[in-house]
């Protein structure tokens, strides 16, 4: 049986039969890996805490007829802080669901792996109840994820006619600009008359949104973006992401449901 090694992040695990688990991992070289960890539910299993969610592991995997089998796993890094706060867990689950639903098996995912690692590391570092910081990390993740996948919105020219927005519009000196999720960016004064579902992005949000795709995580976290603006940005990026990636992320709905009943 052929074996291969993979540095991976544990994204999901399911129970399989009496005591086995199916583990879904994101690795740099092989993208998403679904593999069986035999006996992983037993207390004396050699895997025990090694295959817990969000652990960074180095594992050896044997290729099987149907599913691959994890034969060894060693922990590289553990994010213990994630389970210490339910909001942190929720944000990590959104990130994990996005990765699982967009990445494929067998295709290298080096950039997504690095992004996921940075996002989980920052979530882990956050103080408990630092909900705004956690939302900023999610905003950062969504923006960078869209950039890696090639879906960066168009800000400097109109998404319909291609005319230079800065030459005729008010960005970012005066009020803001109109943004279309469907057309994937800013819409000029002329084209906006024929487009439905436009969002007005005010000057403050516009400046943050434009810089977001090239900003570093430290700058996003330390920025003094208000909670209202963070929520606005999150809302725009979430809708943009769902429209263009054409997938449903259940954990986003969960976040809203939980916030409504004031779980945190």
């Amino acid at each position, binding site marked *: 049986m052929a074996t291969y090694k993979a540095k991976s992040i544990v994204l999901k695990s399911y129970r399989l039969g009496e005591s086995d688990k199916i583990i879904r991992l994101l690795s740099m070289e092989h993208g998403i890996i679904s593999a069986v960890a035999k006996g992983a539910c037993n*207390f004396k299993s050699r895997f*025990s805490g090694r295959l817990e969610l969000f652990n960074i592991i180095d594992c050896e995997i044997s290729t099987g007829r149907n599913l691959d089998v994890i034969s060894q796993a060693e922990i590289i890094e553990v994010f213990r802080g994630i389970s210490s706060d*339910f909001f942190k867990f929720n944000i990590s689950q959104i990130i994990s669901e996005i990765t699982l639903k967009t990445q494929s098996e067998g295709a290298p995912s080096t950039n997504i792996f690095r992004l996921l690692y940075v996002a989980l590391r920052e979530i882990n570092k956050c103080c408990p109840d630092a909900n705004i910081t956690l939302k900023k990390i999610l905003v950062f993740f969504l923006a960078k994820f869209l950039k890696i996948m090639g879906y960066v919105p168009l800000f400097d020219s109109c998404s319909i006619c291609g005319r230079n927005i800065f030459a005729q519009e008010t960005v970012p000196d005066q009020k803001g600009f109109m943004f279309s999720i469907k057309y994937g960016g800013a819409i000029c004064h002329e084209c906006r008359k024929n487009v439905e579902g436009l969002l007005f992005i005010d000057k403050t949000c516009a400046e943050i949104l434009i810089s977001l795709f090239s900003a570093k995580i430290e700058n996003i976290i330390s920025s003094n973006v208000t909670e209202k603006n963070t929520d606005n940005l999150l809302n725009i990026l979430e809708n943009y992401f769902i429209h263009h990636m054409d997938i449903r992320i259940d954990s986003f709905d969960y976040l809203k449901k939980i916030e409504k009943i004031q779980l945190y």
Partner: protein
Amino acid sequence: MTAQIKSIENLINEFRKLPGIGPKSARRIVFYLLKQSEKDISEFADALVDMKLKVKFCKNCYNLSEEDECLVCKDGSRSIDIICIVEKASDVLVIEGAGEYKGLYHVLGGLLSPIENIGPDELKIPQLLARINKLNTAEVIIAVNPTVEGDSTATYLNKILKSSGVKVTKLASGLPVGGDIEYADQVTIGRAISGRREM
């Protein structure tokens, strides 16, 4: 040939629906049952139907029971000051099997999970809070699996229960009895050290 015998094929398909049973195992079970006496088969079928018709959830703790209240809730000798919160009814059997615990239980029916869309209302958390108020409970033991999902649920429960003034404890986690330190992972060792106790 079995493909032509509809009753056998039906039963094989029914067994295949069970967790961990594939087509070969299902066929093996069916051929084993064919060799059994009519009396044994009818007892087996009666046991299945009987279980489905009689077993329901306890109205207090959501443990499995044949009556409105489960055997634990009906047992007057048990301490009502302490409630052990478990994820599923089968966990009650395991803890009862240890014979160390003499309090009440509360079965949540799952763990909080954003991916599975399971929130507090989908679990028996509101019922737990009402029960704690009603019984004036002194201590709650959170006995969920020591996984990320389990720990997150425990963190949430701790947050809402602490505000009601009840003492909240969690099962110890660390090295298993008979285990070997040499083969333990960093997480388990870390927990064993942070949860160490004076002898």
